[in-house]
């Protein structure tokens, strides 16, 4: 118990002191995951919209595939990206392995199925009349799609937050394709795993506090955007 309270005290001191290593790890984490979510979100929203509103052969199979891919472990995604980007892999010539872009590719692949599935569910729970009303009032298909998405924006926002939560906290994929290189590819989860394995708990706890605080802020933000959380009367 004493050890835990001492490590927590040191963690708070580390955070307050502006420790360069600690803040570089936090910077890498948010920089990589924010870029990954920025790339994945538009792709996922278009995919989810197509699944919800377009009729094409194989749509049902695709929905099942997306739902299945949600359950793929991060290390499996990491392994796949590693094999693709390794020197002998099909994308080896790009020299992306052990760079932030390799981590971004891994995180995009990791969050896409979750994002598509949750956005699809949000769009499915919407109202077909929104799409028809937008079109009949003269919106083109692109604007009508944006209108429909705006109508279910809280569900879509929740999908983005859940997907971001998954990638900011994943360790397996980032460790495999990033290599955990300090100042370059060491992010919060890989740093926590490394420091804990060395028996250095203070930095791990400090980084854990940052993650928790961020998760809390995101959920407060979502809650504020959604209003009181009551059903509409």
């Amino acid at each position, binding site marked *: 118990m004493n050890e835990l309270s001492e490590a927590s005290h040191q963690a708070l001191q580390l955070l307050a002191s502006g420790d360069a290593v600690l803040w570089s790890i936090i910077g890498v984490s948010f920089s990589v995951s924010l870029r990954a979510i920025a790339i994945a979100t538009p792709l996922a929203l278009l995919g989810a919209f197509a699944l919800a509103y377009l009729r094409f052969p194989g749509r049902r199979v695709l929905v099942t595939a997306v739902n299945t891919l949600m359950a793929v472990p991060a290390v499996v995604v990491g392994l796949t990206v590693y094999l693709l980007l390794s020197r002998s892999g099909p994308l080896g010539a790009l020299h992306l392995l052990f760079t932030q872009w390799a981590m971004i590719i891994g995180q995009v692949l990791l969050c896409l199925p979750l994002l598509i599935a949750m956005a699809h569910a949000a769009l499915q729970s919407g*109202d077909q*009349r*929104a799409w*028809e*009303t*937008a*079109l*009949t*009032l*003269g*919106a*083109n298909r692109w*604007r009508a799609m944006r*209108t429909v998405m*705006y*109508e279910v924006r809280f569900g879509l926002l929740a999908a983005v937050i859940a997907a971001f939560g998954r990638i900011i906290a994943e360790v397996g994929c980032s460790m495999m394709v990033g290599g955990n290189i300090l100042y370059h590819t060491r992010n919060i989860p890989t740093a926590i795993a490394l420091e804990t394995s060395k028996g250095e708990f203070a930095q791990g706890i400090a980084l854990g506090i940052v993650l928790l605080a961020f998760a809390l802020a995101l959920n407060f933000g979502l809650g504020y955007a959604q209003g009181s959380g009551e059903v*509409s009367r």
Partner: protein
Amino acid sequence: MSQDTAQPLLTVRGLEFAFGGRRVLDVGQLGIARGEAILLVGDNGSGKTTLLKILAGLLVAARGEFTCLGSTMPPRTAARFCRGRHVYLHQSPYMFDGTVEENIAYGLKQRGRDSAQQRIEIRDMLAWAELGHLVHRPARQLSTGEKQRVALTRARILAPSLLLLDEITANMDADSRRRTHTMIADLRRAGSSVVFATHDHAPLEALCDQRLELAGGQLVDAPVAAGADVIPLRRDGVTTEPR
């Protein structure tokens, strides 16, 4: 009468629509004149809503030849042509998340009207619909009758050539129904053609020039084409010149 106004607004020949491998609509021919009001009656499931959505361009017919303002076109092109020109109103209107004013402004925004112009047009329309007191109210909090009047106002502000009304007075009280009928009569005076779909047609008979009946996806006693032109019939069976 100019050449333009003499043309029927829309004629359709050989219209077919299938859903899930089953043909749900098979309309030989149908003509709608400018400013005409048509009562489309039929039981639930007879294909009224499907026909209205095809005429609005929201659904694309599997087959059919559409002549819109004198130009003949296939179903997909016709759907694109009709969207925005022909406005469809649901039985229970959809209100976008926003105020009454924002809902009415939606179609104007799609047409690129600037906000000052929008405000002027919206103010005039709200006065017409006696909805001025609701302008800043969240549209979803209105009663069914008020929502339907907002939906009609949202449509009228776009000056549609054809208004397709799907059982819009079904859930209204007598006062809301009377107000809605008055608004529709105004819309006709402003030059819009109107098609009412309903299974309770008695209250609407007086508002309409022509009555069509759909049964099992087919028009019963559909108007017969005279030569190449489809001339709508009045209820008494006398052919009418398109207005």
